[in-house]
């Protein structure tokens, strides 16, 4: 995937910018053919990832920078959405990024579960210089499946 992203957003690590960013992702996902419900779920997964960058990557600092890159294909020739989130915050072993045991009910620890539940691929890696890179991919379901999803949401 060496093509430049179709959309490339850089934002400050402030919680008030999350709403606009997820609205953009909903808007793009719908135009790429995702149902309203799936588009909303993709935006939720992205929101969780961005909230984690703010909370953990930048420890709630509001002057960090976050890059969100969007490609209008899951992979070359495969319909879907590919989303990369890069930060310049703390680096952590990707294997340490996991949610809490869902049976152990307590506040927090749900973001990563949501991301993995919604997206087809969720992959963290350390960036070369600083911070983390998260790649999330969602393939467009075949039309039958898509309708099934919409029916469920109705």
């Amino acid at each position, binding site marked *: 995937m060496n093509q430049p992203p179709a959309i490339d957003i850089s934002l400050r690590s402030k919680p008030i910018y999350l709403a606009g960013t997820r609205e953009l992702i909903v808007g793009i996902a719908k135009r790429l053919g995702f149902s309203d419900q799936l588009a909303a779920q993709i935006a939720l997964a992205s929101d969780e990832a961005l909230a984690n960058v703010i909370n953990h990557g930048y420890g709630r600092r509001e002057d960090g920078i976050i890059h969100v890159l969007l490609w209008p294909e899951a992979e070359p020739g495969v319909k879907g959405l590919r989303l990369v989130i890069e930060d310049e915050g703390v680096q952590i072993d990707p294997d340490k990024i996991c949610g809490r045991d869902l049976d152990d*009910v307590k506040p927090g620890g749900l973001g990563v579960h949501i991301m993995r539940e919604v997206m087809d691929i969720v992959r963290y890696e350390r960036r070369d210089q600083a911070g983390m890179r998260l790649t999330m991919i969602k393939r467009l379901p075949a039309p039958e499946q898509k309708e099934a999803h919409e029916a469920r949401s109705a």
Partner: protein
Amino acid sequence: MDEPDDIQISSETIGAAVVVRPVGDIDLSRSPVLRESIRSALSDGPGRLVVDLAGVDYMDSSGVATLVEAMQLTKRGGHDLVLCSLTDRVRSIFEIARLEQVFRIEQDVDAALA
């Protein structure tokens, strides 16, 4: 600079219960406001805390975490917490987090107060 945060949260006492009604998206920038409203509603020591989510179209895990915390606080005080009027989108995050069984969730405020 100061940004206004336009979530509106009203709270109403009905018998021994307090009903808290947030209106707007609940995400990382808003869940602290919800958290404060719930804490102040609980400070009156109601028998039951009802969170009416009819006006909430979007909630992320920070909102869910706030509600899990509220459940723990109410339990600790010997009270109970009921959620009601979830929109489809909000319901779906409870499903993903496998919390539909953990919370008492009712159709509407009347059922939540019953």
